[in-house]
């Protein structure tokens, strides 16, 4: 190639007359890009203290520190991430893993200081920190530091499509609404192994759920065991705190899933379904669990009621070596769960699996034995060293409006449908109530209508005092009921049951609800008396709540048992009532009214009983 010329370069002399490109810092500033990865911002209100940011940090730059000024909600921690900017590499993995999306990066990047300790910093954002985050007029780049930053200066932010966790759960196979409403077949089909492992993989192991669970199950551990494809290990972990996994795996109120980090911006981990998977997959509990009752102590305990509370108390006490006899008037275990929840939610086989295992440990079950009828309470007190009351709420309440005596009550209706001879239903049914029991009743009535009048137009409608936003049934129950075709009439209250000339039910006259609760949050409904609505229906079922039946207790005992303001049996931290030797748990004690809280009560009570029997404080 020819040698280039010497004069060519002179062409660039023109640049002498151009403006310089250099920024005259600090008079001219360069705005960082919209996505800039600078110092952290953390919205303390959204942050749950889950610690996933600290776990993923490649440089161990994040430490979770306790902030005593924060009062954590259930399922949250009062810990917040603290950054060490001597280590941080501004990669933003913490942002992409943050489940609530509270952690973000800002466009600030200045911090100059002689004191190395100032580089360790617990970030917040402008919402809660006026001193650090300043409006434009108060901000000066000459003072810029970790403690002198711009407001509204967010940079790299979380985006759910690029999150490092999976917000979508593995779908639970279920019978479609059109099909399931024609029979009582179990709706949820359960995960298979591959699905369960895939779902378990989503768990971030932050364990916020374990604090939220009333019985504090070691959820992260048993989910991890499912992920490791070892359901036996998982079952062993579950049984440390919960002896009725087949039941809870179906009908648990899953406080854990409400607290699940993944639920904030996605669907919570299907903890309940994974528990069900474990209990369904392990065929033989005895071989998997390898448990045996403890050394005999010679003490005997009577448990009244074979519901979740009673079953769990019996299990925990039996493991401690005590002799336990469980009394229940029904023909099998499960208590209210045996007669309440419909077959499509909780088949008896699942209940029996759990009960049989507890029986196999040597717990003596006396079914079809009603205390107060077949055996006197006083006899039990003489014969046994301690008594546990796990009697549950067994009596349905009535609205007591005019002609309410013509209506059916929820519990007998549900109980009868669990037997071979089901209830007769007309083509139009009204259910009063907006709770989960009302949903059970309505969905059963709807099924019975479809079985009884195939192809005909039938209708089941519910009436509830509460409007959509405060209706007490769970979201999924409402969703499933609507899928099946249940009609809802929220914010209407019953005024009178209307009869026809023959004295048969013709329908329900309703009035518009003004408010359900008073200013202090107590139940005190008010109505617009002038706004009325008439609902047609040949049958009305009342499902507005249940009460306990203490009639089996002798008067002198009943007088000594104290109740709380919420009409609950008062127990101490060991589960003992105000009568020494009588312990209690479950729906008559707690306000949650669910199985897992009953298990928590049972755990406290069984430890209390054990302590009390060995001569400790009751």
């Amino acid at each position, binding site marked *: 190639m020819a040698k280039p010329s010497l004069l060519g*370069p002179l*062409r660039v002399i023109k640049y002498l007359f151009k403006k310089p490109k250099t920024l005259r810092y600090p008079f001219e500033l360069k705005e960082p890009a919209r996505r800039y990865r600078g110092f952290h911002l953390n919205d303390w209100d959204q942050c749950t203290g889950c610690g996933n940011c600290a776990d993923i940090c490649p440089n161990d730059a994040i430490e979770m520190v306790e902030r005593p000024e924060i009062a954590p909600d259930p399922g949250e921690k009062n810990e917040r991430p603290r950054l060490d900017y001597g280590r941080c590499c501004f990669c933003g*993995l913490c942002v992409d893993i943050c489940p609530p999306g509270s952690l973000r990066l800002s466009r600030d990047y200045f911090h100059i200081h002689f004191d190395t300790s100032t580089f360790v910093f617990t970030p917040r954002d402008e919402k809660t920190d006026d001193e650090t985050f300043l409006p434009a007029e108060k901000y000066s780049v000459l003072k810029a530091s970790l403690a002198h930053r711009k407001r509204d200066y967010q940079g790299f932010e979380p985006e759910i499509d690029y999150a490092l966790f999976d917000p979508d759960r593995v779908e639970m196979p279920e019978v479609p609404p059109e099909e399931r409403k024609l029979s009582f077949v179990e709706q949820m089909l359960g995960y298979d192994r591959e699905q369960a492992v895939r779902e378990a993989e*989503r*768990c971030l192991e932050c364990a916020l759920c374990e604090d939220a669970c009333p019985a504090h199950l070691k959820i992260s551990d048993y989910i991890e065991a499912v992920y490791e494809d070892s359901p036996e290990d998982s079952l062993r972990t579950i049984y440390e705190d919960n002896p009725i996994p087949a039941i809870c795996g179906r009908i648990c109120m899953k406080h854990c899933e409400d607290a699940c980090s993944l639920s904030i911006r996605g669907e919570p981990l299907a903890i309940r379904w994974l528990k069900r998977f474990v209990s369904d997959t392990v065929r033989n509990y005895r071989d998997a669990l390898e448990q045996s009752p403890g050394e005999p102590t010679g003490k005997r305990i009577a448990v009244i009621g074979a519901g979740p509370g009673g079953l769990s108390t019996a299990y925990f006490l039996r493991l401690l070596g005590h002799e336990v006899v469980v009394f229940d008037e029904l023909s099998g275990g499960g208590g209210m769960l045996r007669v309440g929840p419909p077959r499509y939610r909780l088949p008896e086989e699942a209940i029996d699996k759990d009960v049989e295992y507890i029986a196999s440990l040597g717990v003596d079950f006396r079914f079809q034995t009603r205390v107060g009828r077949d055996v006197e309470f006083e006899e039990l007190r003489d014969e046994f060293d301690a008594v546990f009351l796990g009697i549950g709420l067994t009596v349905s309440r009535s609205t007591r409006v005019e002609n309410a005596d013509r209506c059916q009550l929820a519990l007998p209706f549900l109980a009868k449908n669990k037997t071979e001879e089901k209830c007769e239903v007309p083509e139009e049914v009204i259910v009063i109530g907006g709770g989960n029991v009302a949903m059970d009743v309505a969905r059963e009535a709807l099924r019975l209508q479809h079985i009884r009048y195939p192809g005909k137009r039938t209708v089941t409608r519910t009436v509830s005092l509460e409007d959509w936003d405060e209706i007490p049934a769970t979201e999924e129950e409402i969703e499933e009921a609507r899928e099946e075709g249940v009609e809802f009439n929220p914010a209407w209250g019953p005024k009178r049951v209307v009869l026809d000339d023959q004295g048969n039910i013709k329908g329900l006259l309703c009035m518009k609800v003004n408010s359900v609760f008073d200013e202090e949050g107590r139940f005190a409904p008010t109505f617009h008396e002038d706004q009325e609505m008439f609902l047609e229906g040949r049958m009305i079922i009342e499902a507005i709540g249940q009460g306990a039946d203490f009639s089996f207790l002798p008067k002198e005992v009943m007088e000594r048992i104290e109740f709380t303001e919420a009409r609950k049996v008062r127990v101490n931290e060991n589960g003992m009532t105000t009568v020494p030797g009588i312990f209690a748990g479950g729906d008559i004690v707690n306000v949650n009214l669910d199985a897992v809280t009953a298990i928590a009560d049972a755990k406290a009570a069984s430890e209390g009983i054990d302590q009390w029997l060995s001569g400790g404080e009751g």
Partner: protein
Amino acid sequence: MRELELYFGPQHLGMVGNFSITLKVEGDRVVKADANPGYLHRGFEKLMEQRSWIKNFPMVCRINVVEPDSMELAYATAVESLAGIEVPERAQFIRSIYLELARVGSHLFGLWAYSNMLGFDTAAQWAMYHRDLVLDLFEELTGGRVYHIYIWPGGVRRDFPEGFEKRLVETLHSIGGCVPDYDACFFDNRLFYDRAAGIGKITREEAMEMGGTGQALRATGVPYDVRKIEPYAAYDKVPWEVPTREDGDAFSRIWVVRDEMIESVHMIFKLLDEMPKGDVYNRIPNPFKWRIPEGETYVRCESSRGELGLYLVSDGGDKPYRVHFRTPSYPHGLTILEKALVGESISDVGNIMISLYVVAPEIDR
């Protein structure tokens, strides 16, 4: 004449980066050269054996500060190949665009280093300024100027922000508009020709014997480019040329760099035209539980300095079992450099080293 031993670097004005060469000289002629790396050895490969698959992602880019992006690509594709992760097509296009942008940025940096070392301050300042414009684009796309932490297993970390394509095209046009000035000032400058032509000459056979790739090989007339011979990302989706030169000296290598930059810019325009819509990321498994099946893989790509390879072994665990980067500067800086320096004058040591585009952190890893 008396033989002297001369320590060239790591503190030396003609040396870019923390690297040194022990020279045996006679007069100002080099008789023997011993490359001496290690000033930057950070043991990345060992560190990576102790971090989970995702925690290594923000780290690999740090192996080479000049062009971190091809490191990210090598790691991401190796992990994808071991774990069987698919990458969406749009992400493949974005990867190619991003990597070509990185090549332009890296070459501009190299041009700065080279022309600065030769004393062509004007071209050096321009190159640095234009590289800064490229960094602005990276900042907008990824949130980081130097370490972009952008290509991760499964795709890329974010899609283009709104209006990015327009600014990308504008910036590249404004840099491209300066090519005639660059040529006049530097590439067609007689002084550059006199300093670089015939210097540090390597024949085609020598280059291949010593594992040469990239400009070192292409300047000897071999159109060897991994983007062509084993296409990855979206390099097989648009037509483009591999620029070569014949002489194998510093002058040819720098001209190959220049032509490559221009080719890269054209390729970006073509890729932008062909780029499909859609997702840019297939979610990886939960990083806290991510284990990759037992196996080994070797992946390679064309970095701005030559062939970059990664040998990655998994023992089925949550961390790599062995990571070994085959960086292009390794043979260039340790084998070819030692050969190319022999017989040259001391004043051309930096000239040859930078024309081979030896980046010390890449050797040390």
